[in-house]
């Protein structure tokens, strides 16, 4: 089984408004897949469906070949899928280190333990230090997450997402609102942390998308109109009209 994530006819309506109108998508294991599309196309909604934040209105979602439709976010996470958020979603009052350590606890099997002392959990502490190192926040170890700079918070967001060692990672606009140099750093970080993993990302910055993605899907009004290699997407007529064209004209 080489498909990490598979969507079969996934639909989502809010009231009478259909946001996702039957999406079929298969992302192979180890692939870096970008989902692009104009504002309001339903990209974030799609992420919320895959990660269990919202229930689907129809269709089926498979993670590593098993249906995860209707499961709660924590159940999907325990099966090896982790996501980041478009609007930074971390534990603001905790230090960088505590944020990361919380994110590794479940995967290391400490679950709801009240008989382990956190300070004595060598594996969890070591893993947290490693993740901090890899996201470049080691020197901010004991700083409250809430007072980090925006770019640092985005890095921590990614750190919390990957800390548990999930093999499918969903990143929702990881470089949104960043300066050019911050974006370049973020791209390197994403490349590093998604090594040997399956990555799906929603991204507006075309530079980032074409730099990172092996494959790109274009979502327009709740439907995927194209899913192909970056080179082919660039040359796709329908995509140019629906998406790239409008941006070029603007």
């Amino acid at each position, binding site marked *: 089984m080489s498909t990490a994530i598979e969507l079969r006819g996934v639909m989502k309506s809010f009231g009478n408004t259909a946001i996702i109108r039957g999406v079929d998508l298969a992302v192979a294991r180890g692939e870096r897949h970008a989902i692009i599309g104009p504002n309001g196309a339903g990209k974030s909604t799609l992420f919320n469906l895959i990660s269990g934040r919202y229930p689907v209105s129809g269709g089926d979602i498979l993670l590593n070949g098993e249906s995860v439709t209707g499961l709660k976010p924590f159940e999907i996470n325990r099966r090896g899928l982790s996501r980041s958020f478009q609007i930074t*979603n971390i534990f603001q*009052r905790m230090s960088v280190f505590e944020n990361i350590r919380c994110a590794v*606890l*479940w995967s290391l099997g400490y679950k*709801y333990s*009240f008989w382990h*002392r*956190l300070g004595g959990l060598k594996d969890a502490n070591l893993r947290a230090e490693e993740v901090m190192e890899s996201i470049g926040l080691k020197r901010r170890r004991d700083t409250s997450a809430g007072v980090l700079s925006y770019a640092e918070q985005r890095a921590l967001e990614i750190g919390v997402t990957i800390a*548990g060692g999930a093999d499918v990672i969903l990143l929702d606009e990881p470089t949104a609102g960043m300066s050019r140099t911050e974006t370049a750093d973020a791209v390197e970080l994403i490349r590093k942390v998604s090594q040997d993993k399956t990555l799906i990302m929603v991204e507006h910055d075309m530079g980032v998308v074409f730099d990172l993605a092996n494959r790109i899907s274009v979502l327009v009004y709740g439907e995927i109109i194209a899913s192909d290699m970056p080179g082919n997407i660039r040359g796709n007529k329908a995509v140019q009209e629906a998406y790239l064209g409008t941006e070029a004209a603007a």
Partner: protein
Amino acid sequence: MIVLPLIFTEGFTLTLMSQIGIGVIFALSYNMLLGQGGMLSFGHAVYSGLGAYFSVHALNLIAKGSFFFPVTLLPLVGGTAGLVFGVIFGYVTTKKSGTTFAMISLGIGEMVFACSLMFPGFFGGEGGITTNRVIGQPFLGITYGPAIQVYYLIMAWALACMAAMFAWTQTPLGRMANAVRDNPERAEFIGYDTHMVRFLTLVLSSFFAGIAGGLNCISYEIVTAENVGAVRSGGVLLATFIGGAGFFFGPILGSIVFFIMVIAVGALTKAWLFYLGILFLLMVLYAPGGFASLIVMHLPVMKERLMNRLWLPYAATLTTGAVLLAGLVSVVEITYHYSLESNTAPQMKLSGFEFDVTDALPWAVALGLLVGGFIVSRFAWKAVGQAWAGIIHTLQERSA
């Protein structure tokens, strides 16, 4: 704590300190919910109260010879009862957080209190259930007859519970309770069922509340419906908040202040509840982090050796505050005396002065102190504010 009763030999002080010891366990258990888990409960007395009831029945059964269990460990019976009811009620209450949780906890509190009237056999109706803690043969001279022995029992349990509850804050579940408090959504996306985290936190908290209930039973040898009532639930919220829910030691401070207000001030004046209300109001308005945060905010100032800038404004605040307090207490006490006893005994004594509450002069003096105290206090508060602004500025400069 061990030598204190040797200094204060009066029964009154012993009662006060025993009550504080029990209160500390209860408030710390409450803060596992409020401070650590972000759950505002209006019904925490359910768990301590049911713990107390099960303890009192157990004690009576032990006295009858139905089974043997050492009185020293009786709080464990209370703790177990608290834990079991925590499992039953907590499963429902912790499904939701925030306002919904608070409302359900209030509902369960009312429900259990209503049960106390419906099942007089278990709850003892109006009179409650009485018991006698002195049972069986003395063990190493310990009978729990004298209050001093009960005091040491309470202190031993209080220390053990404090240590256990502090240790809990340093465990994976304790840390995840903080995480769920701060950002439940994110906690779900790193693998945690927030309902389960809240549920387990509440169950453990109920266990410690039940221990406090068991100690209450031993200390007073009577358990009434009041033990599960809303007043008790409100009291622990008040004590925790006054002390500071944001810090582990906050509820300890809070319990000390609370029981001094209830027992010591309560022995002096009928208006104690009024003063407690004012204290609570002032804390909510001006120090929402409680006494603990007031202490903690001075730590960096001490470290940077800037306290000398605060002594003068603080001394001024204390002096002017004393005038304001004297005015407030005078007005309140005279009003109480006037409304309750002016027909039968218009004479009253207040801090050494004897006067007639139907005269105008005492009223004028009291109001004068209150208004004057308020006016001069404002200058002192302003000075404190300015001193703090300067200190914060200096601290920022030094850290940059």
